[in-house]
């Protein structure tokens, strides 16, 4: 550990990121610019989230990383090991044991407590970017609360598809002021953005940090005649039987056999350990894990 700066980044960089985090918390949903640093991993690996984690971790933390709900992808394992080595943190795959959770594209099924922090890896922080390519213009639109175009885009979805087709990165309005991209989480997760824990968002390539303090109002944009609906596959988890979790669909054989399973692997495993068995599941055995 002595060959590294604590949590990899030098102290001046951490101070700069820490100041950005504080302003982010003071202005919920507003994107604070920061000077992103090169990290020893490619941008697609969540360098924004990694820099936020580096700025907030202490050696007393227990750190969990999920990638689309799974702890065991290359990306998740690499980031977990990175902070185990550079910050001396304990690591876990159990949501309830973690003090800091870095995530790509999911919010854990288990409600977070007020002593837990969720750090999101964000690819494109600007919710207005696909409507307006210019940063100067989007910044102006945010300053004037000019969000009409966003509503028009969602409404075009309805006229074309009969419903709002946006399924991921579904835009939200934070505390009645800033429209924010919650990162590419499924819209099923949007209601969980109002939580007891602190939520921090880091975009490395785009050099933005934003935040949602606990118990902050987060409203998914919708219309009176088309209210927001946090949809998921109309199925139960085939492994643990959960009916309330977000599911991944898996093709399991050449005959086109399908299987639905919890995207949050810790949630699924915990349920199976507690004796829940889905339609295609087998009772949980410690050795089989």
């Amino acid at each position: 550990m002595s060959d590294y700066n604590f949590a990899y980044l030098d102290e001046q960089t951490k101070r700069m990121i820490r100041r950005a985090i504080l302003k982010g918390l003071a202005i919920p949903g507003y994107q604070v610019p920061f000077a992103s640093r090169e990290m020893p991993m490619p941008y697609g690996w969540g360098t924004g989230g990694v820099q936020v984690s580096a700025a907030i971790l202490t050696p007393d933390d227990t750190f969990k990383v999920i990638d689309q709900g799974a702890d065991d992808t290359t990306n998740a394992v690499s980031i977990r090991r990175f902070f185990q080595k550079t910050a001396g943190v304990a690591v876990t795959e159990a949501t309830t044991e973690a003090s800091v959770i870095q995530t790509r594209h999911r919010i854990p099924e288990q409600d977070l407590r007020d002593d837990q922090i969720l750090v999101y890896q964000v690819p494109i922080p600007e919710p207005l970017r696909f409507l307006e390519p210019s940063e100067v213009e989007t910044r102006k639109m945010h300053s004037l609360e000019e969000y009409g175009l966003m509503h028009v885009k969602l409404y075009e979805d309805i006229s074309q598809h009969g419903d709002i087709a946006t399924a991921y990165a579904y835009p939200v309005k934070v505390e009645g002021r800033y429209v924010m991209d919650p990162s590419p989480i499924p819209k099923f997760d949007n209601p969980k953005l109002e939580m007891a824990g602190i939520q921090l968002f880091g975009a490395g390539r785009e050099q933005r940090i934003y935040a949602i303090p606990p118990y902050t109002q987060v409203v998914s944009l919708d219309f009176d005649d088309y209210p927001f609906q946090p949809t998921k596959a109309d199925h139960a988890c085939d492994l643990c039987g959960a009916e309330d979790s977000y599911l991944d669909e898996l093709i399991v054989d050449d005959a086109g056999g399908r299987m639905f399973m919890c995207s949050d692997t810790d949630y699924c495993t915990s349920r199976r350990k507690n004796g829940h068995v889905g339609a295609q599941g087998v009772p949980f055995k410690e050795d089989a894990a």
Partner: protein
Amino acid sequence: MQAHVLEGGFDNHAVDSSHAFRAVMTAMARPGQIATLQGALPPAPLSKAAGVVLLTLCDPETPIYLAPSHDSQQLRDWITFHTGAPFVTAEAAIFAVGTWQDLPVSAFAIGTAEYPDRSATLIVECESLSNTGAVLRGPGIKDQTALSLPKTDAFQSNAALFPLGLDFIFTCSDRLAALPRTTRVG
């Protein structure tokens, strides 16, 4: 420069500042919640908590305004040695330190419409700090809480500026609490 200017910093800067930042961040995310900090022993009249905040967040990039209550050569030397932050007028400050009476609150930067984050954070040194007095509501607060604010109307006016405005850290001995611009003071 007196020898004790060199003293009173963090023993292990990286680790001490990581703990300190988590305390400050938690305070800013949960307005009114009081935290206890450790690690710095600044010269009087700077409180331990205010010293820890400066060591954790300040460097040559963050100009500091010292209110008359805190503007001594000894304290300037200590801050310069441990952080390298330059001293400026209230208008140019990113951070400010002083008693409520001595801070020219209306002079500080409140950010711009497009960059509301370009606003000052005021460290207000208090004689007492407790969860009594003004009722606080808003982001970070479940239902409501209370905090012994030095005034109420100044913080109501500040909240009315949202998304512009100042953010406050109240310090007392080794404890602190924060009040971002989003908090509604009842």
